[in-house]
């Protein structure tokens, strides 16, 4: 890993962490509804710098956020880690297998879907263990995730375009 990559990962992790923290301050109508703003940074990192960088950013964000909020190694941390890693991996695998098929919005939707599925599965295994409760709530969570996922995808798309524009300006 080059030192330039390290700087990039550190900077992107800081952005993701800031968004993660900002998001937890926002009041939401349902306590477990999260906007997944940090996924904007994960997705941007994935598209611009590849899956390894995106995974690093996700891991750093999840671990540091849990240390700051005092949930490290607790149940919320396990949910957050599982959802983050699975969604990053799913987006990375899809974008490397079929690079031209999905744009940022599609990748963000895939990430949101896998994030929610992983969290529902973990919640079932760790806390609830009542399959009917999980089945009941799943479509609601996946629907909300689709909405927030598409918004995050659009924001990522704008961010990527602007970053590329800025890069071109520097090179010219």
């Amino acid at each position, binding site marked *: 890993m080059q030192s330039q990559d390290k700087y990039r990962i550190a900077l992107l992790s800081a952005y993701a962490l800031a968004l993660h923290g900002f998001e937890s301050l926002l009041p939401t109508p349902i306590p477990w509804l999260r906007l997944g703003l940090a996924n904007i940074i994960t997705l941007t990192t994935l598209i611009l710098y590849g899956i390894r960088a995106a995974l690093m950013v996700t891991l750093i964000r999840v671990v540091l956020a849990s240390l700051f909020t005092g949930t490290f190694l607790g149940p919320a941390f396990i949910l957050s880690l599982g959802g983050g890693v699975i969604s990053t991996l799913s987006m990375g695998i899809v974008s490397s297998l079929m690079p*031209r*098929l*999905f*744009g*940022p*919005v*599609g990748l963000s*939707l*895939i990430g949101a*879907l896998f994030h929610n599925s992983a969290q529902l599965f973990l919640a079932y295994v760790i806390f609830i263990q009542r399959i*009917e409760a999980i*089945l*009941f709530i*799943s*479509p*609601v969570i*996946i*629907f909300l995730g*689709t909405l927030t996922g*598409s918004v995050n*995808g*659009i924001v990522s*798309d*704008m961010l990527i*375009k602007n970053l590329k524009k800025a890069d071109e300006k520097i090179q010219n």
Partner: protein
Amino acid sequence: MNLKGLLNSTTIADRILLFILILLSLSGIIFIKEVLPKGHIVWIEVNGHPVYLLPIEKDRIVSVNGSEGNTIVEIKNHKVRITESPCDNKLCIQQGWIEKGSIVCLPNRVVVIVGTPEDELNKRVDAITG
């Protein structure tokens, strides 16, 4: 940022995926209630002590021994009624079929409650004073 630019930046696969996800989750929200069991139970108490905990899905007829004699409780098609009771006024029989709520037969001290298991747990007394 206009709508046209937004449409240009998404691929066809993006839009198909969005459409499928919204369709699946919305139909899931609508239909999952029909598929899942209601989870209601029939809870029969005599003198304040639970004697039967029965699933409402299963049709059956039980006889409950109250303080004056036997009360016959029938469960059928997700509904409950009392068919026979030794009491004088037969209010419990007149109440007919219920899907939720309760039937109380005071003379025979029989209570039939239909609810979710959570209802029964939440109903427990916190404290008794005096």
